[in-house]
């Protein structure tokens, strides 16, 4: 089962593997920036699926979304991956393993706060011995998260040894200043360790690496992603 799961990995996150970590590693903040509707949530879900397939525990935090909806996204990606590998008969077993490694926490209404995320992380640790290795924060723009809040979240992730992933919606207008992340991500760019951008081109999506503090990739990727899943298309050389 472990080998099968590892063989399914196709997220660009695997390009960041180093020091034995299947991603950028504990305490690091990964960011994906794109315009509305390009697929930031699908990309983040892909990061989550990748971590689960690597055997890591994932906490997926979202705002104004139902648990069922988020589970659906994970399941859809998994089905797609297994279909491609012609291993669909393993769906329920892989699904169950992933479910046991994943916790989805959603905030409805105005209930989101960094304190509440912190408290949830403690509750999960104390009540279920669940300590995530990867935390995904989706739709943070709806929660009005600002730079101090992101710094707090990053610190919390570092305390428990987790890697943090977020998405940021950029605007059509307003080009980035050279050497900086596009607004509004530029406001907290010193906190970001690695940033991808998703660039729609006709019906396809091109992936660039626009920040790489610790030179994990060493070159811009400039590759096309599978437009349906926003995962790497088979055959793209990974770092290893």
């Amino acid at each position, binding site marked *: 089962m472990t080998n099968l799961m590892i063989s399914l990995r196709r997220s660009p996150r695997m390009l960041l593997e180093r020091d034995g970590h299947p991603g950028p590693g504990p305490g690091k903040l990964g960011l994906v920036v794109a315009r509305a509707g390009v697929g930031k949530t699908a990309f983040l879900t892909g990061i989550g699926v990748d971590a689960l397939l690597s055997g890591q525990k994932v906490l997926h935090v979202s705002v*104004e979304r139902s648990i069922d909806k988020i589970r659906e996204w994970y399941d859809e990606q998994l089905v797609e991956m297994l279909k491609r590998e012609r291993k669909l008969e393993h769906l329920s077993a892989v699904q169950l393993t992933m479910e046991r490694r994943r916790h989805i926490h959603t905030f409805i209404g105005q209930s989101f706060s960094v304190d509440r995320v912190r408290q949830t992380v403690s509750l999960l640790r104390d009540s279920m011995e669940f300590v995530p290795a990867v935390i995904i924060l989706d739709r943070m723009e709806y929660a009005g998260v600002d730079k101090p809040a992101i710094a707090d979240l990053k610190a919390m992730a570092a305390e428990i040894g987790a890697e943090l992933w977020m998405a940021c919606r950029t605007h059509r207008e307003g080009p980035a200043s050279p050497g900086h992340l596009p607004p509004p991500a530029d406001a907290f760019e010193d906190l970001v360790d690695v940033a991808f951008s998703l660039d729609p081109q006709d019906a396809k999506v091109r992936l660039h690496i626009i920040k790489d503090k610790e030179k994990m990739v060493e070159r811009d990727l400039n590759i096309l992603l599978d437009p349906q899943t926003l995962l790497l298309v088979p055959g793209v050389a990974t770092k290893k």
Partner: protein
Amino acid sequence: MSSDIHKIRNIGISAHIDSGKTTLTERILFYTQRIHAIHDVKGKDGVGATMDHMELERERGITITSAATHVEWKNHRINIIDTPGHVDFTIEVERSLQVLDGAVLVLCAVAGVQSQSITVDRQMKRYKVPRIAFVNKCDRSGANPERVSRALRDKLGHNPVLLQLPIGLEAKFEGVIDLVEMQAIYFGGDNGEKIEIREIPAELLADAEERHAELLDAASMFSDELMEAALEDRATPDLIRAAVRKGVLALDLTPVLMGSAYKNKGVQPLMDAVTRYLPDPTDVPIEAIDIDHDGAALALHPDPDAQTVAYAFKLDEGRYGQLTFLRVYQGTLKKGDTVFQSRTGKKIKIGRLVRMHADKMEDIELASAGDIVGIFGIDCHTGDTFTGPGPRISMTSMYVPEPVISLSVHPVDSKAQDNMSKALSRFTKEDPTFRVHLDPESNETIISGMGELHLDVYVERMKREYSAEVETGAPQVAYREAISRRADFDYLHKKQTGGSGQYAKVVGYIEPLTEGDYEFVDEVRGGRIPTEYVPACDKGFRSSLAKGSLIGFPVVGVRAVLTDGNSHAVDSSDMAFMTASRMAFRDAYKKAKPQILEPVMRVSVEGPGEFQGAFYRSLMQRRGTVLGSTEDAGFARVDADVPLAEMFGYSTDLRSATQGKAEFTMEFSKYAPAPKEVSDELLKKYRTNVSDEEDA
């Protein structure tokens, strides 16, 4: 009263327990003059709400079985099916949904979208029932209808649109602003029966105008005419209503109304909304099965002159015998007519035809397509279809979940024995998820159902309605057995020692089947097994599934493939091939790595946020897989998949862990392999029982 089919509405009222659904129904009956005084659920006056017509329901303050009632409102005929609020009675909800054309989703203005609403909404989606939302209890402290409307979007994925705004909230709740007509509605008189239309209070006007614009935006998506009119500032209430109706029928829009049924506010506009936005019987496509043409799909038309097709969705034992609730889908049912029961082909004469008003009834002469009526004196099951002369038609069969829990019942004396038999025969006709069988080994009567509460209620009903005193055994979980890998078989059954012999050889394999319980594949070529014996092989394999060799529970998910074999001109027979297949299965089953499957329930626990940790712990202790949690305005909900075997006594434990402030719902989710320690325990228990029986 109009007999126009466009003026008929068949609606359900669905909600979480304590959302005030029964109170709302009671007020509807009052305003439509079906009752002349208002009673409350668990009323201080000792009368109880009219729709809760069973004694047990009155005592527990919950609605257990559906009751149908007919009301008239502004030249429309509305049939209301009151649906139960507890998931253990899901079949009641599902049966109602099948015959409904639309529904009112009642939500509490304080608690919002609760776990039961999520379950009921999921069921409504399955049956494609268009719905409107009524945010009740706006007079309660903490009421916030706008938050509830948002939760409809966030938690249920609806596209809600406010048709009203509250005038004041909590203790100051006075009435509602109608955002279509842009006017204020107040409810005067002793029982809110005096509607007063006034101008929108000045302090609320700006907000109302903004919301009116939002309504126009949302409704315009369904009507180009309204979009053009809105751009030119000439949108009329009629145009808005027509567009909203279109959105509702397409299941793409959920109008949100509000009020306080208890304080008699907002109910009449809700009735108007039912007639304006919910579908009439001609708006909903009806599909039946043509029995004479291999079960081909057949579209029915709600034409009163076409062949009669009616569907029994509910049975009730009344003072005058069995009362069957029918939905007439096509044609007309007349008193004195003869119809045919599709399942049995039996001829049935319609003796007495009635319209139901909870416990009271009104005799009628005929019922046309689209109507819901009751008939007396026919012997049938729920789910039966009745047709007039012509092709044999059956309504699509209902989705019936398999029972997941069993209980043995022993009558305390011979009188109780007779009464228990009567009661069980009645209950199984009423409720397809309630099953009864006699265990051939223990000779005990076993009842099975969808949960502890489901069976509790039937045991209680046996005592109350049939004076059948019974003792019950410990609840048993309905386990299953399944193979986990392919295994070949090659079995020769040969007895040729004197007299007529037996000879049959079967070769093939069994393998796991992911969809369905059993499949038989005949791949024998060249007549190695003569065709006439192949069905006997199928029968032999099938009969092996009734009781697995691990713990004696049914085997599911098996594909049996027959590839080769042999026969004897004289000594082969059906019996020989059946025996050979049974023995082949027995051998192959052991090699196919059989495993025990246990029923897993989807459990949602909900309560104040301070108990979030307690929810996690309680579910983990019960071998639950926690799927996620949701926080909403100080409340927390945790969803998990938990094996049913671990859920006994959960309500008591949850109550004590949370001082009674939390609640949970559960419904069947799936069968999943039991972990090793659980399987080992079950195997040990089964072996001990078998050896005890052998010793005895």
